[in-house]
């Protein structure tokens, strides 16, 4: 009979300070030395982490009511537009929204960062004025202490694998995958590979709605599957996809976050984005889970997409392992090409260690998902059609 543990058993061990917690990098060596069975017996929790740029990020804020009250419609935070289509003083500030005066060098991500940093933020708003909300204009300053709720909400994060990018054209390209020099001279990629959450739980057995996580330096939760959740892709013998697949929607309290784990990002001639530090613990429930956790960078493959192709599907120029990508050089169509990451492995390691400390100290318990994700989800594209056309 195989080994099996429950969430309750693991949480009891965490509470009593006896839980054995290691990172998704450390587990690889343990399994190599002791084998799957013994590692499953000995280890209770494995921490995974990522620190990558994710455009689909933002924060919900509630400013509190002014006197006389106002139903804010056109809202600016440090001259960056925030959404005015919610209730009177609620808003959503999106990470990629650009400043109306400074462009993408200061965007929604910078506003969120400055909020976490405790800085004063200029709030201006306009409204038509109603009988119940007569005020038509406001120009004031807020900060993280003066506002009510402030929570980060990521409609999409933690991509389960992502494309590697190359540029076969003869022009330099400026993309969300960084600056891509021409003539296939560089391949960029974005992952924490063997440390990445969804590459360690590829079939979403323990990461689902309600999973408690580390986000931006505090506790948060997986709130839903992420947008563009595409679990129904071809997988290898280890259940791993070779193309972008599952994603997660995440939530966490902005007021408890740290600027150490959230950073605004600027991609030249593309726009603003945001680095978010995420850590997800995986309970070692059985040997199958351990088998997935033991997978190394050399076994995780991704596909190299040509970003110079702007219409139609981007051609795939080959497959490559993350070990090869991390080596700094790979071969693409017989040519030696330099490689460069966009997501910080160093930061991801720091987060995996930090989460390990939290769990070992007994302050962070594991939450079993309330609902798990489907493994057969597909995506729709967007057609440009006329009304009523089929």
């Amino acid at each position, binding site marked *: 009979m195989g080994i099996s543990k429950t969430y309750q058993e693991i949480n009891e061990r965490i509470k009593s300070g006896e839980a054995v917690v290691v990172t998704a990098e450390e587990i690889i060596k343990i399994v190599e030395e002791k084998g799957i069975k013994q590692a499953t017996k000995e280890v209770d929790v494995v921490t995974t982490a990522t620190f990558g740029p994710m455009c689909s990020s933002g924060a919900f804020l509630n400013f509190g009511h002014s006197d006389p009250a106002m139903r804010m419609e056109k809202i600016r935070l440090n001259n960056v537009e925030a959404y005015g289509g919610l209730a009177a003083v609620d808003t959503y500030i999106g990470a990629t929204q650009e400043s109306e005066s400074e462009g993408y060098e200061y965007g929604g991500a910078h506003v969120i960062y400055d909020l976490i940093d405790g800085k004063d933020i200029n709030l201006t708003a306009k409204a038509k004025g109603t009988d119940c909300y007569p005020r038509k204009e406001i120009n004031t300053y807020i900060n993280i202490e003066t506002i009510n709720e402030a929570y980060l909400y990521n409609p999409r994060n933690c991509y389960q694998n992502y494309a590697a990018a190359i540029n076969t054209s003869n022009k330099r390209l400026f993309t969300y995958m960084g*600056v*891509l020099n021409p003539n296939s001279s560089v391949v960029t990629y974005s992952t924490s590979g063997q440390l990445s959450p969804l590459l360690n739980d590829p079939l979403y057995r323990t990461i689902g709605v309600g999973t408690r996580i580390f986000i931006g330096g505090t506790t948060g939760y997986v709130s839903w599957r992420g947008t563009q959740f595409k679990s129904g892709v071809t997988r290898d013998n280890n259940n791993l996809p070779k193309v972008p697949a599952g994603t997660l929607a995440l939530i966490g309290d902005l007021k408890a976050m740290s600027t150490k784990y959230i950073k605004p*990002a600027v991609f*030249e001639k593309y726009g603003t984005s945001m680095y978010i530090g995420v850590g997800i613990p995986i309970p070692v429930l059985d040997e199958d889970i351990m088998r997935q956790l033991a997978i190394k960078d050399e076994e995780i493959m991704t596909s190299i997409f040509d970003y110079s192709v702007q219409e139609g599907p981007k051609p795939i120029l080959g497959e490559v392992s993350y070990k090869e990508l991390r080596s700094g050089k790979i071969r693409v169509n017989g040519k030696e090409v330099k490689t*460069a990451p966009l997501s*910080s492995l160093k930061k991801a*390691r720091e987060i995996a260690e930090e989460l390990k400390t939290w769990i070992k100290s007994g302050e962070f318990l594991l939450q079993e998902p309330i609902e798990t994700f489907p493994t057969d989800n597909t995506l729709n594209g967007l057609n440009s059609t006329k009304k009523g056309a089929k």
Partner: protein
Amino acid sequence: MKQIILFDFPREESRHPIVNDLIKIYDLSVNILRASIDFNARGFLLAEIEGEEEVIEKAMEHAKKCNVITNYVESAILIDEEECVNCGACTAVCVVDALYLDEKATLQFDTDKCLDCKLCVTACPVRAIRDVL
């Protein structure tokens, strides 16, 4: 000796006459290469300083006491290690591998290899690389 130094003035120190101190107190020769100092705003001053090595060091200590950050400039770029997240995006554009990630996934900069092309300045997503020369 001659040394290029970048002085960073925090907002509240922009009125301090630091160049005056360097010349009058320390008798250093100061050749201002570039400067942007506005009242009540963060500013910088890039200067080539000439004088005895120990005297320059003392003058830099004096600047630090005045809350002015000093950086010795050895290449066209300056990496702010506090801001850098070690993502590696800058290494994508560095054709001579002057910028690279070491085995601990930490960014390293080899000033001898740098060609001063400054492509990394715009490639850095967290704007931790400054064009100083």
